[in-house]
């Protein structure tokens, strides 16, 4: 493995030295260096500025000496009209610049990290034809090979596997872990280019990554109000102004908005949360942790045990129902099945009224706080901010999301000021010109292609069972939606692996990072890669991340800065059709500003080369170069109406002025006015879901037709809690995006604990729990669950509910012995602890947020 210590690389050092000696000479009055500067040097010395879009938002890359020396915010000139919101006697206007977050600020450091894979690599001992040795997979002994050899080997293996076993023996694994930002490259390649390549060849075994950030929304909330195409999150555009003008209170529930909405956008929405406070709207945070959002945006923190939130929601509604403070008319005209839910609340079916006292035993909230929160909520229009990550990815996440929808339904969802949102990421929130359409990664190159290819192979594997499929087939399961753009039937469909008549997987093609650390049960995941049954594993990679150690061939890809692309700030196309979470609508020609490092090349180029080797270049490319694809996508987008392609390429971005005349369409206002038209069988909000009842019956313990609080199967009341008494929760990380940027020293040093020459991932623990274990702030502890064990450093804090610990997932997995499943992870990768059990019988989706764990001081014993 290459050096991952994050020191300046050799070339960095040479450059720094060159520049600083130049500085030294100038400052010292020595003009020698100046005199010998050639014209070429002067040219290279000039600073050039390029437009870029990253997964941390839009930036301008400053390039000098052929290196990116800085990323700076893209600014919006004064003469471009931007939105203004008048509310509560104030006028709110966004800053005239894109709000970069720490990722966008550290992007150049990431691009140049010493762990970049610069050359194609082959594992020592691997041979084509399934003849090699497999006993060093995971140990990462690689030799550098030429691109020609690498492509020859990969193409040869694809041919051999295809001919010998059939196309189903090739599995394509992508994980929506956001490699790089782009429409034709990076994420765009993941979504469209690679599937196209494989489909032209006759198809492949599809891998269903499943959403881990919206799992509960698509499997729960969507059954109540539709929005399957938006991962089960509802409309967001224009919600923000409406809340600012009409809401009396904003409740943040089960998410850390300040931290988690940065994905794709940076801090664009952070100003909105400040405005909420400035407008005098009171705010509440319901969460097991006093998170960053709570630090500055919450008047009140209501701590709840992780995974228990649905009980609190039920108790709030119990208060409304018994006090008659819900919108009876709305419920009658806009929802179906309320009576059955009311019976549940009042305990008519199970003899247990869902009182605040009942809830206290489950979620730990003082009944008076519950009553107070319920009454405050009902006292005026309240916005619920909850649609991203957090509670929806955990135990029975679908029950929590259904409870959230029910809460707002009882208060008249869609009425002025009664919104359900995230404000950031896919939900949107800002005023937004809906006539603007720019493609995004989820549709990739498809809108520009003459012919699209589908996958004729019916076999698939799912992220929750991939290792079982490889290690101990056959495997059967039900449901398996990825989330976006799937319909409810998807949950009821049955699958098996292998599909009769189709070969098992013999070859894995992987793209994107983070397979291990971003998804549950890392040990189990890694085990599959050790199997000699998988004859060949090919990975495209930016960095030598832990998963790469299990590759047979590594193809080096390049970052956003090293190729051209076309995208829009914060807009993913299809399921993120708008960039409504950005303050300005900006189409970006992502300019190539430096040459690919080493021998790396763009994701798309890699597959161009492979297509050529496979003899399918014409079908694959349709004669298009990178520039042709971009131009064709550009011509199909709104941007083409305002600027020529040549000017756009040169300028690098186009900022759509906010329309002078703007008619806001607050979310679900149409539904409020109409009382129907949702994508549910009845067109109304289905508090009681006939679809669920028809399929699972009236009393399924894991998926009742009306939302309920369900005791988690392996939660605090399960037998495993004896040995693992603490509730571990593993939210989206702050200092990295899934695993991305985990290698960046600038960010590591901000949160990792450095001791005895290593860096340890921190975990939060309440002083009460720490004292009980004789653990002090900064101590290294061993955290274990039924699935694995890891080392992490104790961050003792009052900011977390006692009885619980928090570790951000996504740290690099560093097992002591990568070939022994279950060996101690020194990287502190939380998903070592998480279970790959599905969320429920109903939802074959991640529930990675919660797991029972134990913590013990580390004194060297395993």
């Amino acid at each position: 493995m290459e050096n991952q210590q994050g020191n300046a690389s050799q070339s960095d050092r040479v450059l720094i030295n060159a520049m600083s000696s130049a500085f030294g000479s100038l400052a010292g009055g020595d003009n020698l260096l100046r005199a010998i500067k050639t014209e070429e040097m002067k040219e290279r010395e000039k600073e050039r500025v390029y437009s870029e879009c990253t997964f941390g938002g839009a930036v301008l890359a400053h390039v000098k000496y052929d290196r990116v020396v800085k990323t700076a915010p893209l600014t919006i000139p004064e003469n471009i009209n931007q939105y203004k919101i008048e509310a509560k006697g104030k006028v709110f206007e966004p800053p005239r610049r894109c709000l970069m977050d720490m990722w966008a600020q550290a992007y150049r450091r990431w691009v140049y990290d010493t762990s970049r894979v610069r050359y194609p690599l082959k594992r020592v001992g691997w041979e084509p034809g399934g003849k090699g040795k497999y006993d060093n997979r995971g140990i990462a002994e690689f030799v550098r090979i030429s691109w020609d050899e690498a492509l020859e080997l990969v193409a040869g293996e694809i041919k051999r596997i295809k001919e010998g076993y059939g196309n189903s023996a090739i599995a394509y694994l992508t994980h929506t872990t956001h490699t790089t930002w782009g429409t034709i490259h990076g994420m765009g390649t993941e979504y469209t280019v690679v599937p196209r390549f494989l489909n032209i060849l006759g198809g492949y075994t599809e891998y269903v990554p499943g959403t881990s950030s919206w799992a509960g929304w698509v499997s729960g909330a969507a059954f109540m109000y539709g929005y399957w195409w938006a991962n089960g999150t509802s409309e967001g555009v224009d919600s923000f102004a409406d809340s600012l003008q009409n809401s009396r209170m904003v409740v943040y529930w089960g998410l850390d908005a300040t931290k988690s909405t940065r994905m794709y956008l940076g801090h664009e929405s952070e100003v909105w949360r400040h405005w909420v406070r400035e407008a005098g709207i009171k705010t509440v945070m319901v969460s097991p942790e006093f998170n960053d959002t709570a630090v500055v945006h919450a008047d009140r923190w209501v701590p709840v045990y992780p995974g228990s939130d649905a009980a609190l929601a039920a108790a709030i509604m119990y208060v409304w129902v018994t006090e008659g403070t819900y919108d009876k008319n709305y419920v009658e005209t806009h929802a179906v099945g309320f009576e059955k839910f009311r019976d549940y609340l009042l305990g008519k079916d199970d003899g247990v009224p869902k009182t605040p006292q009942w809830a206290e035993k489950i979620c730990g909230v003082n009944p008076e706080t519950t009553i107070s929160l319920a009454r405050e909520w009902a006292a005026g229009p309240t916005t619920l901010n909850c649609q991203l990550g957090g509670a929806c990815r955990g135990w029975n996440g679908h029950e929590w999301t259904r409870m959230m929808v029910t809460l707002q339904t009882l208060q008249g969802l869609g009425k002025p000021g009664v919104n359900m949102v995230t404000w950031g990421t896919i939900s949107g929130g800002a005023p937004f010109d809906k006539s603007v359409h720019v493609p995004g990664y989820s549709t990739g190159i498809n809108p520009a292609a003459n012919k699209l290819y589908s996958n004729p192979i019916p076999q698939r594997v799912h992220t929750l069972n991939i290792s079982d499929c490889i290690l101990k087939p056959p495997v059967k399961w039900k449901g398996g939606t990825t989330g976006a753009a799937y319909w409810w039937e998807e949950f009821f469909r049955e699958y098996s692996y292998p599909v009769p008549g189709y070969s098992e997987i013999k070859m894995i093609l992987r793209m994107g990072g983070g397979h291990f650390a971003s998804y549950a049960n890392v040990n189990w995941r890694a085990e599959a890669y050790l199997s000699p049954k998988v004859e060949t594993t090919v990975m495209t990679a930016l960095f030598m991340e832990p998963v790469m150690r299990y590759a047979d061939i590594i193809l080096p890809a390049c970052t956003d800065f090293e190729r051209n692309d076309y995208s829009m700030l914060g807009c993913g196309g299809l399921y993120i059709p708008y960039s409504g979470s950005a303050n300005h609508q900006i189409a970006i020609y992502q300019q190539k500003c430096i040459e690919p490092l080493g021998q790396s090349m763009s994701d798309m180029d890699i597959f161009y080369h492979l297509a050529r080797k496979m003899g399918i270049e014409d079908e694959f490319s349709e004669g298009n170069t990178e520039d042709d694809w971009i131009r064709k996508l550009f011509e199909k987008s709104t941007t083409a109406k305002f600027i020529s392609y040549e000017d756009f390429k040169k300028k690098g971005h186009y900022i759509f002025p906010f329309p002078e005349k703007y008619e806001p369409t607050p979310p679900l206002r149409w539904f409020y006015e109409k009382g129907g038209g949702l994508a549910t069988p009845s067109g109304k909000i289905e508090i009681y879901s006939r679809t669920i009842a028809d399929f699972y019956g009236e009393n399924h313990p894991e998926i009742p037709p009306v939302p309920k609080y369900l005791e988690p199967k392996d939660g605090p009341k399960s037998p495993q809690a004896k040995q693992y008494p603490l509730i571990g929760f593993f939210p989206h990380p702050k200092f990295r995006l899934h695993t991305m940027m985990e290698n960046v020293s600038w960010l590591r040093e901000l949160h990792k604990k450095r001791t005895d020459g290593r860096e340890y991932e921190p975990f939060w623990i309440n002083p009460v729990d720490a004292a009980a274990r004789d653990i002090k702030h900064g101590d290294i502890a061993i955290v274990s669950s039924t699935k694995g064990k890891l080392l992490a450093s104790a961050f003792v804090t009052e900011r977390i509910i006692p009885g619980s610990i928090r570790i951000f997932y996504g740290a690099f997995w560093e097992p002591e012995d990568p070939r022994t499943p279950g060996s101690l992870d020194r990287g502190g990768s939380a998903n070592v602890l998480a279970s790959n059990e599905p969320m429920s019988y109903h939802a074959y989706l991640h529930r990675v947020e919660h797991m029972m764990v134990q913590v013990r001081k580390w004194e060297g014993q395993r």
Partner: protein
Amino acid sequence: MKYSMIVDINRCSVCYACVVACKNEHVGNPYPPYSYPQPDRDQEWIRLMEEEKGKYPYVKLYPIPVLCMHCNEAPCMEACPIPDCIYRTKEGAVIIDSTKCDGCKSCISACPYGVIFPNEDRNICQKCTLCMHRLEQGKEPACVEACPSGVFLWGEESGLEKEMKKREAMPLYREKGTKPRVYYVGLPTPTLAGHVIDGKSLMDMPGADVIITDTRGSSMRRKSNVAGNFSLDNLKMDTAYTVKIEHTGYLSKTIENVLLDIEYKHLGDIKLFKAS
């Protein structure tokens, strides 16, 4: 023209954009004559000090961005044995001249803010330059520009004076007496807080008058905010206070002998009952 800044930590959402922006601006980049490149790690010219106060579930976090204070009476300057090595620019920035510095570290021990870092490779000491190279181009410092939350109020010293007075801005570690150019709003001080609610409805009570009196009879007064919260700061540790809460139409409530034994003391929900 001399510059100053007010850092309003009440607005800080702990996002670290400012900290990483400084690295983005300075790591690997020399800005002659003000700075050599910042090394890849171990130097945080601006750091975020997360001061946690209070007891679960009433926690308060004070995230304090700490950069060089560009002191008007700078101990680093006095401690430096090399003539003119540490100097002040007309913009008010205190600069270590890297071409003169020999890395003796006298300044490091003299600085009360811990913002100077040794660079062992080059034998120099390095720190924040107030982004002099940017000021010369008419730009704000990189950390200021990076903040999404409006924490930094940046500008010409004279223009900020009114705001400083109004918001009672204070230097960090004022007792050090170094006359910093960086001022803070919302620094941690001994604080008494609480949440006023209607005893019957349990709902928030905005606009309640909270009067606290110490044993010597001096008192302070605040109104509870929109969410019924109040917070009185700048109190004295280990002092007993009498807290009185009043609201028209309600019986007032007095809590005697509230000992300020932790720096952020929260009284929890305080119930007022209607007078009738």
